[in-house]
């Protein structure tokens, strides 16, 4: 995916934040349309819940 701030191409599975601009890459900060980390709807749901509970 591309970082929503600086458009750096990165793998969201490997980074919690963009190595270049430091933007947070959690589900709270991104929408699914700009991220391709999840393989399907269930993975997306699970990751979203996990990410949001971690952010809270």
């Amino acid at each position, binding site marked *: 995916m*591309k970082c*929503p*701030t*600086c*458009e*750096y*191409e990165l793998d969201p599975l*490997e980074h919690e*934040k963009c*190595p*270049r*601009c*430091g*933007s947070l890459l959690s589900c709270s900060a991104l929408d699914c*349309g*700009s991220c391709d980390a999840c393989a399907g709807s269930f993975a997306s749901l699970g990751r979203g819940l996990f990410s949001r509970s971690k952010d809270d």
Partner: protein
Amino acid sequence: MGSCHDEGTDPDELAATDAETIALVGAPNVGKSAVFNRLAGEEVDVSNYPGTTVSATVGEFEGSQLVDAPGAYGISSFSEEERITREVVLDADLAINVIDATQLERDLFLTHQLLDMGVPTVVALNVMDEVRRDGDEIDVDALEAELGVPVVPTVAVDGEGIDELCDAIDRARAPEETPVEQWFDELPDVDASRRESVLVLEGDQPTLDRITSSEVLADGGVAEVELPSLRDEIYEHRRERVDATVEAVHSTGESGRNLTDAVDDLLLNPVTGTPLALLGVGLIYLFIGDLIAQRLVDFLEAEVIGGYYVPWITAVVESVVPASGVYEPLHFILLNDNLGLLTVTVQYLFGVLLPLVVAFYLVIGALEDSGLLPRLAVLTDRGMSRIGLNGRAVIPMIVGLGCVTMAVISTRIAGSRRERLISTALLGLAVPCSAQLGIILGLLAALGLGWWFAYLAVILLVFGIVGMFLDRTLPGDSQGLVTELPRIRRPHAGNVLQKTVTRAKGFLAEAIPLFAVTAVLISVMDYLGYLASLVRGLRPATVVLGLPAEFGQVLVLGLVRRDFAAAGMTDLALTTPQIFVGLVVITLFVPCVLAMAMIVKERDLKSGLLMWFGSWAVALLVGSVLAAVVSLL
């Protein structure tokens, strides 16, 4: 205070000499252009949205060449702006790195990268006023010690810290060593500088090409060298260093959420943001359409120009140039009631166009400075995606409301070639420029609010239908919205006024000669009877539009500039429905000659011609349908 510019050498002359080159680099929207204006004493547009600088601007600073590079988060080649910035940095003697003090975590990456590359650097720690307002603290001495280069706190738009920055430029330096050296063993066997070496290790192919293209082999070819793939490793390492630096120098205050955050939430929520946006449009209408167009323009046109100037200039010309004999044509060109060079032309330019254009520039300048435009991008993203664009394209559209020619350049910020093409076509077709819009608002104000909304609805409908048509017919897919939201700020009156003055000067420099040449040509055609023939040739079009034959002359003016056409409409005796149809037609009519030149330059001749003929077709088609509809009223 606040400017250390010394009037001196022309930048073009400097480029030809061995003058030192200073690169002004930083992320988008950190205030580079404001620093540039202060240092070079020039007037580059400064706005509170990313992408104001889409190409490098060159100025002069104390005998050196100062280059304002496009905003970039790092030195690499991921976008056109980054490629330009990379070239500027590779060729510069030293760099002024402007960073947003409220975005240290983001901006210090580029700072560390410049220092890794060994570029002598001085850091301008900009937007310090907002750090203080947030109750945060940055230990500038500690930051200077961490980086090993001079750091100067600034508020560039107010000129704060600029003198200190000027003094610090002589002390620009870079650390002798860089942690990136640990990977230098992985470099391919090429002759590269430290700057180039770092970029090659980060996998920057254009830099490798730049090095290897100069290494010609015996057979005349160039060396094929494999690019190392250490980018992630180096970036992660640099990110750790950035985080450590921020941790060491930055302390957060206890201010919590403030009013700006609350306003931001309201603007970004479609339920509250849309009515607020409409309210903003209404206020703009009241300011330009009522206060300026109805009161100021009426006063200037009737009282000042009509009451004092025209009788005076007529008397002066008639005392010098007789209205008969060999001087008759000259007398006609200067004073005729149609488009006399010294009468009606002056009245259009200074009585109608200039006040409206200045008012619009003030509004656009304040919107740009406030940071509201990117929020509008977010708000409009869903709608724009229906026509093959994303919310970022709203920025060229709004710039287009100032000047379509400039907006065509700013379509570069719209992701792909496909999106640039759609944005350009819509700009050329359905976005009126400030000069034209000012007059349109003035004429619509006289008709009433209902006609104003009808006009808005028709233009938006055409915009949407043509956008959807282009989205479905052009090959390829659109990209999603990727944009950064700058902070909402109170517009700086000085900056808004400076931009307005710069733009108004630019408008007059462009409009006066063009309007004068047009006036002379049309007057000559009028005197010789050709204008009447041309207008007669356009009669079938005006009949279909339900407009009088004189509207043909408005179309002829519109071929040069659409605002000329709008100004021409102010003198026609038309019914209310006819004014409405005429305004829609001249809005959708062909782009002005300068916008056309820019379209051909930015896109290509074929696209330009298609847009030009397409505008004729759409304007006449929509106008004739409207004429049929309003005739039923």
